[in-house]
């Protein structure tokens, strides 16, 4: 048995702690509590009930979230006040870990993201179900090599996995130099158009290689497809009347 004392913002608990992936036994002077490992799937379901979007900002009701962690038997206000800090500590995971190596991640496609937004957004009320959106993100972009279903991972390991896939699918906005520098914008779009590359690939390419590519593009005559001649010769006259007849 590993006995420890946990202090969360002044709330003190005695713990029988064996890691966040094992059941937890906690007690205070008068009460005791047993918690099962808090799983990624439970976290996403709880987010759906405890988050809301106001004025474009995502807000979390920490008390309601803690009540979800504590479970249906401890929904009373005094129980949440007593055990809430412990519940939030338990849900957050002890130490940040690297994402498990038994899963591979990939960025989601535009179609997958649009499907997730459609599933998460209520068009009538405008309510956005964050948990459902993130659940579809995990389902689309986390591929299991081995190990359990990602949603069955304890948050100590599922949390870093979720953070990693979020970073992969929602990269930082364009860096200021790219947005501000017209020459860099033109160069990026020119290479993207000529070679079909993504902007990220252009920026990660060695500068010398890009210079060589630009030199090749400069020396290559641009061949544009010949425009198809218009069937009508009258249509271009300013005084022509045109009647379109629908079937």
């Amino acid at each position, binding site marked *: 048995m590993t006995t420890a004392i946990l202090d969360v913002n002044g709330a003190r608990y005695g713990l029988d702690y064996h890691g966040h992936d094992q059941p937890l036994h906690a007690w205070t002077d008068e009460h005791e509590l047993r918690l099962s490992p808090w799983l990624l799937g439970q976290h996403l379901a709880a987010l759906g009930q405890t988050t809301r979007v106001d004025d474009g900002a995502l807000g979390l009701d920490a008390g309601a979230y803690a009540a979800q962690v504590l479970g249906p038997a401890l929904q009373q206000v005094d129980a949440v006040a007593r055990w809430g800090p412990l519940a939030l500590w338990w849900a957050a995971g002890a130490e940040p870990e690297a994402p498990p190596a038994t899963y591979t991640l990939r960025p989601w496609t535009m179609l997958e993201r649009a499907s997730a937004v459609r599933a998460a957004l209520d068009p009538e009320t405008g309510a956005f179900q964050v948990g459902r959106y993130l659940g579809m993100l995990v389902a689309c972009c986390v591929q299991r090599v081995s190990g359990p279903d990602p949603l069955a991972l304890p948050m100590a390991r599922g949390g870093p996995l979720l953070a990693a896939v979020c970073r992969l699918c929602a990269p930082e906005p364009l860096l200021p130099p790219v947005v501000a520098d017209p020459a860099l914008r033109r160069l990026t779009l020119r290479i993207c158009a000529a070679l079909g590359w993504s902007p990220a690939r252009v920026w990660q390419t060695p500068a010398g290689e890009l210079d060589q590519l630009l030199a090749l593009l400069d020396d290559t005559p641009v061949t544009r497809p010949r425009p198809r001649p218009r*069937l009508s010769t009258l*249509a271009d006259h*300013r*005084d022509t009347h*045109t*009647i*379109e*007849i*629908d079937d």
Partner: protein
Amino acid sequence: MPKIYAANRSNVLVDGEALEGAQTLHYRVVVERQDIRAIGSDERIDVAFGLRTVEGELIVRSSSDKLDTLLAQSARFQVVANLKKDVGMVTESTRTVSFDDCFVTGKRFDMDAGDTARTLYSFTATRVREE
């Protein structure tokens, strides 16, 4: 800018027969004009207006035997375009454009974006009447 009428529930009649597959009708009125000069002046003193003809084009999907025959025979014909447009539940006739004493002067082929053959028939008319 061209003047464009978009009409549904419309038809084009060639000598009273409906022209199947009619897509577009272009036309313009051409009037010959001559400036009248005067000796001793670099300005014109009047304008003389001459022949007034109508140039037209009919685009048909995919071709018209009737117009092909008229082209082969250099025969005279009349074109009437009845433009009707639905206004709510009521079909309201809004415009009739008639071309008198027409002759087909040529034709060209094209494939549109949907890979459908189209034929353009050029014609001239003595006059156009809009009612």
